[in-house]
């Protein structure tokens, strides 16, 4: 029973990180209609840099308890790659979606070697710094407090994004542009700025997710390639362009992965793909998305 609860909590932690990246994907797809294959690369970038920054900080005597803030800063810093990349993507905005997909694929290839160049081919991980936050025990079952903090952070992010989109003027502008770009432009919205800021926000969520995950998993080159698929599973199941979908989808994918690891390991990722396929076939709009043509 406790093992089960631990697994579930592990799944929720994974879901929290997934949500962040998926939310970034959803924003970019919802507003710009771009499917960003490089989201996994942003994730990996955040992870690697997070480790580097933490190691550097610890080396200069910064106390380990600042681990979480440092990682958040790492994520924020790496988000700076967002604007220049958006500038690059601008050259294919009007064109066929295949070209946009291909350009982001080109970015994936390039990022792989950039990561390899800076951090080398071996996986990297943090030591046990995360233990500084301690664990929460409840009878037989324990959970690292760090994990709970991240889950809380993800929920906070979800709430903030939701508020932002619904209650602020800029958020409404974003939703208007997502709904109907031409109309928004006609009404005076500076779509260029909107696209730039949305992409940057999406990048930020990706790098942040990567940074937050490193205390519990290693950063590796494979990360960038493999994570894309999971993030896409979340987006498809939750519904393209929907924030609520990102939340629910991330939870589903995180839990399914965690549970199938316990129940039938061979099935682990297969289960997710099957659900993705089933969703695309039976309800292409996903749980919360609008129907696609």
């Amino acid at each position, binding site marked *: 029973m406790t093992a089960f609860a631990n697994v579930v909590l592990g799944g929720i932690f994974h879901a929290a990180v997934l949500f962040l990246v998926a939310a970034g994907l959803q924003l970019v797809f919802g507003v710009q209609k771009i499917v960003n294959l490089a989201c996994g690369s942003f994730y990996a970038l955040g992870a690697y840099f997070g480790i580097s920054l933490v190691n550097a900080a610890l080396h200069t005597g910064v106390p380990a308890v600042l681990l979480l803030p440092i990682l958040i800063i790492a994520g924020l810093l790496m988000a700076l790659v967002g604007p220049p990349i958006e500038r690059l993507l601008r050259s294919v905005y009007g064109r066929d979606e295949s070209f946009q997909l291909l350009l982001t694929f080109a970015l994936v290839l390039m990022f792989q*070697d950039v990561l390899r160049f800076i951090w080398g081919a071996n996986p990297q991980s943090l030591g046990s710094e995360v233990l500084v936050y301690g664990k929460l025990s409840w009878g037989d079952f324990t959970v690292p407090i760090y994990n709970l903090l991240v889950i809380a952070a993800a929920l906070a992010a979800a709430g903030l994004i939701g508020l932002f989109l619904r209650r602020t003027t800029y958020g409404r502008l974003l939703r208007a542009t997502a709904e109907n770009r031409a109309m928004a432009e006609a009404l005076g919205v500076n779509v260029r700025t909107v696209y730039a800021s949305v992409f940057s926000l999406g990048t930020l969520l990706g790098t942040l997710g990567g940074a937050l995950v490193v205390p519990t998993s290693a950063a590796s080159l494979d990360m960038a390639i493999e994570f894309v698929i999971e993030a896409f*599973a979340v987006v498809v199941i939750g519904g393209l362009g929907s924030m609520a979908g990102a939340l629910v989808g991330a939870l589903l994918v995180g839990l399914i992965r965690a549970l199938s690891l316990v129940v039938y390991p061979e099935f682990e990722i297969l289960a997710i793909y099957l659900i993705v396929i089933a969703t695309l076939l039976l309800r292409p709009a996903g749980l919360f998305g609008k129907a696609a043509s």
Partner: protein
Amino acid sequence: MPGRAQLLGVAVGVVALALVPVLAPPFYANLLVPFFAYAIALLGFNLLFGYTGLLSFGHAMYLGLGAYSAAIVAGVLGIRQFELVLVAAALAASLLALPIGFLCVRYTGIFFGMLTLAFGMLAHSFLFKFYHLTGGDSGMRVPRTRILGLPFDAYNKIELLAGPFYYYCLALLVVAGFTLWRIVHSPFGLHLRSLRDNPQKAEYLGVRVRQFRLAAYIISAAYGGIGGAILGFRIGLADPELVHWTHSGHLVFMTVLGGFNSFFGPIIGALALTLLQDQLQSITQYWRFVLGAMLAAIVIFFPRGLAGIATDFARLYKAPKQPQVAQ
């Protein structure tokens, strides 16, 4: 039928390729065998992409299936005849493409891309995880087989690949290319292009859009299977990485590099990337970066690919035609 310039180009190309084993060290012929595999696979892929307008991000699945078919037929079942391996590969790919294509062609654009990607990764994880059946990440061996019934015992593997097998693949490419040319220039091909350009209008002209998309999908899968069988024979192994989505990405890369609006584009792209990748890998360990940058440049500046650049170049030398009237 192809214009004189095109026929000449094909003839020159075939002769040049035929001369490689004669004039160059065996390394180069060996290097070009995967080119043949990819050229055949991409001819089929572009039927789906360039001519029918469907971009599949899971097409590598059929190449993988071709390689695994080779492993099963030649290895597990011990049937060491390459012709039978080819038939099995094409058949297996077509049979799998039927239900998968049936499900996928109900969608277009990004949904089609995502569905095909998901199926591809489903196949990947199946091959990876069920290692009792598939050998997991070690893959399955593809043993040597007879070619045209001949064992070529006097040749070792490298000599075989750089010699008889090389010419065999060249012949396969010519046959595959000729067949696809006929398909593309047939009434069927015309209907494919019409449904690519405007599916709604095509329906009103009686084009059975979904059926034809499925037919194109199956044909492209069969070509992929044949390419995969060649790859499997050449590498001697069928492994799950053949089926990973990044491999599908490379197929798209080659097609776009060569030019997807052109019949010969994919072949040019396969050749270019095979040679380029080999050269780059000997110069730097960061060849992926260079390739990525190239792909970005193609997408942004040369969307019609190498074939497009070549046609533009050729046009500079021809007399200008009557300008089109557009209002």
